[in-house]
């Protein structure tokens, strides 16, 4: 077990390193010179050179990459003498736009993204699994066909279209919800809930439809298993039959998929946050991309990759706990 874990973590480190390298090369080498961008319109060659030296852009590429990497773990200093700025670990540098510490920007916005992700996940798990389960048990009935038709339709709506349609219907026409605005929970819990409701629904719809179809398929497959016949031959109560014998085998694979989906969302729901103007990591990514704010883009990409890769390992570990057959003996 310990060896397996060590192996997985080593693989994780390698992948993250490669992603770091790849992202670094693309964002800092392929894109326009950041020094020119920071410098702005009233720029002199001296000024550019100065900025380049402060950012360390005058050093060889390997040196720059090393500085970036070590900055992540040990922090780094920018400039020298009186202009020296220390950026403590994990150092993602400073925004070209606002000169804020990128790490602090992320810490500021992460709670919003986590709120969006958690709320949506709760919603889609409940709706998706319940609908799928009911469809499986009532396979072939009117309910099953309707629910699965809706699921197919729901998974085909691009979320920005759904977002606009929802806003139009709920806010403009029916006026049951206020215009979306970020309200902190501590200020007004009701308004907070209302402000997150639409993002949750929009984000959850596609996933709920997908999970409903997955759950239905898995439960139907499980109900056809030999061990279900055995369980019925034992005279178990139908509730126990479904809860114990059918659900666990049917839902265990879904845990894996859920882990991956959720991990990907923690890195920011880019489109949903942008459409609703929620100040999460996703919107930050979109904004920084629009303004070519490379340190921020870089940090957001790395953060998202980190969540995905770590999520992968966590999912594997959870799966080993859930399925006795893959437990390391």
């Amino acid at each position, binding site marked *: 077990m310990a060896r397996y874990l060590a192996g997985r973590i080593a693989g994780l480190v390698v*992948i993250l390193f*490669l*992603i770091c390298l790849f*992202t670094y090369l*693309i*964002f800092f080498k*392929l*894109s*326009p010179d950041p020094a020119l961008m920071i410098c702005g319109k009233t720029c002199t060659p001296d000024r550019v050179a100065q900025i380049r030296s402060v950012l360390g852009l005058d050093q060889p590429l390997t040196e720059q990459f090393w500085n970036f990497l070590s900055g992540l773990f040990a922090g780094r200093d920018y400039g020298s003498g009186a202009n020296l700025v220390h950026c403590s670990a994990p150092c993602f540098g400073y925004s070209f736009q606002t000169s804020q510490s990128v790490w602090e920007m992320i810490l500021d916005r992460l709670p919003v993204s986590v709120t969006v992700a958690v709320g949506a996940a709760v919603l889609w798990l409940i709706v998706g699994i319940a609908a799928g389960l009911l469809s499986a048990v009532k396979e072939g009935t009117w309910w099953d066909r309707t629910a699965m*038709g809706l699921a*197919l*339709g729901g*998974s*085909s*709506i*691009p979320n*920005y*279209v759904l977002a*606009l*349609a929802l*806003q*139009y219907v709920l*806010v*403009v026409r029916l006026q049951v919800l206020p215009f979306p605005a970020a309200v902190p929970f501590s200020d007004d819990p009701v308004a907070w809930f209302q402000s997150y409701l639409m993002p949750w629904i929009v984000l959850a719809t596609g996933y709920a439809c997908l999970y409903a179809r997955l759950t239905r398929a898995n439960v139907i497959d499980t109900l056809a298993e030999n061990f279900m016949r055995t369980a019925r031959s034992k005279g178990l109560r139908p509730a126990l039959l479904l809860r114990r014998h059918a659900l666990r085998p049917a839902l265990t694979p879904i845990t894996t998929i859920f882990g991956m989906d959720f991990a*990907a969302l923690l*890195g*920011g729901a*880019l*489109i949903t946050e*942008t*459409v609703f103007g929620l100040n999460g990591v996703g919107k930050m*990514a*979109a904004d920084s*991309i*629009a303004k*070519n704010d*490379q340190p921020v*883009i870089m940090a*957001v*990409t790395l953060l*998202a*990759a980190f969540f*995905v*890769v770590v999520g*992968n390992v966590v999912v594997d570990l959870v799966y080993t706990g859930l399925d006795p057959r893959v437990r390391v003996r």
Partner: protein
Amino acid sequence: MTTAAPSRDATAGPEAGAGTAPATEGRRIARALLRDRGAVAGMAFLALVVLMAICAPLISAVTGHGPNEFDPTAIDTNLGGLPRGSFGGISAEHLLGVEPQNGRDVLARIAYGARVSFLIAASATVLTTLLGVVFGMLAGFYGGWIDQVISRVMDFLMAFPALIFMIAILSSLPAGNRSVLLVVVISGFGWPYLARVVRGQTLTLVNREFVEAARASGASTRALVFKEILPNLRSSLIVMTTLAVPGYIGTEAGLSFLGVGVTPPTPSWGQMISSSVGWYAVDPMYFAVPGLFLFLTVLSLTVLGDRIRAATDAGEAS
């Protein structure tokens, strides 16, 4: 139990089996699709959109409105450029209404936008399938270090936060030809999902008796790949590609929506929806029309893919 094509022995001649099986299989799937109301409706809608895309210049010629022609008479400058008339300015002159502020004809823009969306999605599908099949088969067929390298690259690509990365790459790369760039980026992140399945299936096929028999009888690698393995991957490839197309259409529209896809003035559905964001409260038709086209296109493709999969599964089960 009667297993069909795969278990036929090599001495019977692969040509015989490969020649007859696909025709009947294809016909059976086509029959199953024609019996399904959802699939027929989907195909009809897709046919309509494809027709619109192909005939886009014709539509413009008939209605007299190009995709980028401003029509100041169709909008009301006193109301901040809102289309005149109800429902986003739908009239005999403009069948699907006009855009606010500039009065461009929505029908023409939808038709030209369909060209862009379909072309990008189709090219991305072709490129993704090509990459997925080649790398998946290489990994599955040769195994060893080739498999190791390809599998690690796939792990790496799949661990990437694809959307953020696509946006970032598209925004940092110099302008150039956006459409080609979109295709390359979508395929670059899309192929591992296909390759993973192809690799797994190739791996099991390589060890099946009929491939071993063909190998033992001295068949060349090329013959093995093209006559034994590829035909057996066909049905899962069809299913996976049809299910992937709506994803690519959605991705293209999403990227254009975020402003890193097709650049104006070239119209694209995602871009149209994106520019309607500020208007949704006062001119809902502005986002409803392209939104509906996008939704119905994705839905049609999804339903079609779903039904094709059901039909192939039923074929394999019998």
